[in-house]
């Protein structure tokens, strides 16, 4: 079952959202609604599901409704219509008290502007969620300390947010969100306010943390590079509508429309696409093949080079036509003598950037006669 399932979610800003909702459902455009009724359509029929342990990225430009979306999940903004099922029960139907309970125990949130409490030091900021829950002082400070250590802020416990750099402040924000051990982490443009180097560092940090914690994360961003780097799946919003949902590779290789494609244009594909996406099916030769036979098959396939595998189809190395010919003239019965020094290998999920580095670092085996 999905951790969070969103069904036909609408948010309309204005004094009479429910009247306008009917028009939105009839398919009147966002601009027309604004001109005719003065209402702004924030979210228009969003349906998606977020799986347990997944990093789900919602991306879009400003005004696309992505921040509205994430605030609907914890009801900082009240949706106009639709359902948000959290472990199967509808968040939008919860009473005020239950919403508080949900926020306290199951949801953590990280903000673009950090939104730390300037009058509290780092420990008190991180422990805030626990304080709200009524956890005794001693215990909440212990638990806060643990997360301060995890995000690498040991030694800054008593500093105030104003004394820390942007990156460090957002580490506090992250620790504050994690301190209550929430099931779902909502990250609203969490790294957008940081400079590129620090942003990259924080992304790595999040990936590292996520490998240990396996939280369900809803990550909002306007940066496709970031979306593709962090997301197991990415949803793209435009004008409050869901344009496409897919894995990073799907978004890049198979954009549904020009909008998504335009987004993907500036992305460094070598960082997104993996070896899997570009690999071809090879016809390897078993090592037991006689050199003469090998020469024939390579000639047929117009290959100057081929991959050699053992009886279990495990990769052993490459042979060139030249080496095979030499082995044949030596009278070898198999290809073992013709195997070239083992060529570099890559795993299917290695990104192309890494493959390029491999290729650059090593001269290819001699292509032989051709």
């Amino acid at each position: 079952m999905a951790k969070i399932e969103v069904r036909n979610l609408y948010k309309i800003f204005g004094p009479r959202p429910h009247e306008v909702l009917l028009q939105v459902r009839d398919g009147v455009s966002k601009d027309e609604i604004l001109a005719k009724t003065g209402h702004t359509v924030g979210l228009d029929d969003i349906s998606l599901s977020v799986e347990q342990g997944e990093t789900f990225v919602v991306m879009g430009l400003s005004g696309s409704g992505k921040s509205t979306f994430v605030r609907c999940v914890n009801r900082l903004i009240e949706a106009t219509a639709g359902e948000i099922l959290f472990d199967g029960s509808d968040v939008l139907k919860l009473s005020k008290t239950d919403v508080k309970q949900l926020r306290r125990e199951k949801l953590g949130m990280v903000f673009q502007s950090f939104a730390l409490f300037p009058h509290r030091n780092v420990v008190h900021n991180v422990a805030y969620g626990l304080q709200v829950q009524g956890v005794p002082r001693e215990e909440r400070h212990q638990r806060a300390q643990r997360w301060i250590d995890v995000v690498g802020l040991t030694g800054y416990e008593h500093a105030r947010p104003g004394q820390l750099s942007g990156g460090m402040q957002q580490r506090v924000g992250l620790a504050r969100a994690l301190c209550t051990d929430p099931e779902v982490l909502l990250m609203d443009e969490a790294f957008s306010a940081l400079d590129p180097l620090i942003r990259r560092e924080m992304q790595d940090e999040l990936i590292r943390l996520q490998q240990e914690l396996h939280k369900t994360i809803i990550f909002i961003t306007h940066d496709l590079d970031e979306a593709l780097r962090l997301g197991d799946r990415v949803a793209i919003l435009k004008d409050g509508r869901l344009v496409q949902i897919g894995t990073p590779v799907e978004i890049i290789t198979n954009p549904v429309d020009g909008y998504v494609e335009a987004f993907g244009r500036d992305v460094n594909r070598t960082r997104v696409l993996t070896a899997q996406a570009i690999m071809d099916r090879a016809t390897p030769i078993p090592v037991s093949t006689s050199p003469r036979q090998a020469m024939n098959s390579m000639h047929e396939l117009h290959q100057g080079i081929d991959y050699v595998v053992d009886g279990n189809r495990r990769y052993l190395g490459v042979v060139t036509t030249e080496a095979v010919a030499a082995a044949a003239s030596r009278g070898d019965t198999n290809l073992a003598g013709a195997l070239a020094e083992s060529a570099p290998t890559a795993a299917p999920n290695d990104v192309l950037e890494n493959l390029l580095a491999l290729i650059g670092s090593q001269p290819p085996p001699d292509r032989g006669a051709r």
Partner: protein
Amino acid sequence: MNVFSQLGTWFQECSASLGSVFSTFPEGCQIPLKEWTNDGLKSLVRNYGSIFDVVNDQILFILRRLEGALLALPWWLVILAIGVVAWHASGKRGLAVGLALSLVVIGMFGLWEDTVRTLAIMLIATTLTVMVGLPIGILMATIRAVRATVNPILDGMQTMPSFVYLIPMVFFFGLGNVAAIFAIFIYAVPPMIRLTNLGLRLVDKQVVEAAEAFGASTVQVLWGVRLPLAMPTIMAGVNQSIMMALAMAVIASMIGARGLGAEVLRGVNNGNVGQGLEAGLAIVVLAVILDRVTAGYGRRLDYSTGSS
């Protein structure tokens, strides 16, 4: 009710005199607000006089105690204490020493006792101002309807000539210090209310949102986040209220406030410029002390600058 029957007769008279309405302002149309107010006040005092008496006695008791305590202490100890507080608030030693020395000079004018009396009145009126102004300010910041109602009332209160407040106070409490304290309180409370409201509403919305995102209740957000972050502005409100209270303390001498104000009034009545100047200087010193102390604490509570 009485007022309604009065309103009825007023309407009859008014319509009867409509004939000559264009030549002179119709006499029957005068609104007797004067009489209504006076009648209302009279019935208020007649029916609830005992409550005013109780309040009067309580405030008077506290005032006497405070005055007595401050006057019983050796003058140099009080001055030293004020100096230390000023130092603690502002962090400037020179300022504290200067203020203490000015107090000594006032003592040499022979105004030490009057200064202490005024200080006691100020302390009580200010406490009252904060006790009433803070909750109203909080309500204004939280409830839109309260804001819509209170704002025009405050506008009216602040434009009303301050002398007008003196009269009903005499009605309720008779001539004397308590009437003066309440007149001061009414004159000084608007900035306290306004700046509390403003401070709470100026708190960074995103920080408030963060607190809510962690499931904080309205009360938790108020106490834990909004009030602490609004403190600099609220302290500015206290500061403004005190400055207005000092101004009113002089005017309130007309209804029996003792202290420096009475000294100024005496100077006016006797045409004694020197007497007025001495008392006036003492008030200036008192104002500077109270201003620096409250402004100093306001600055120390400001976390937006990042230091401390």
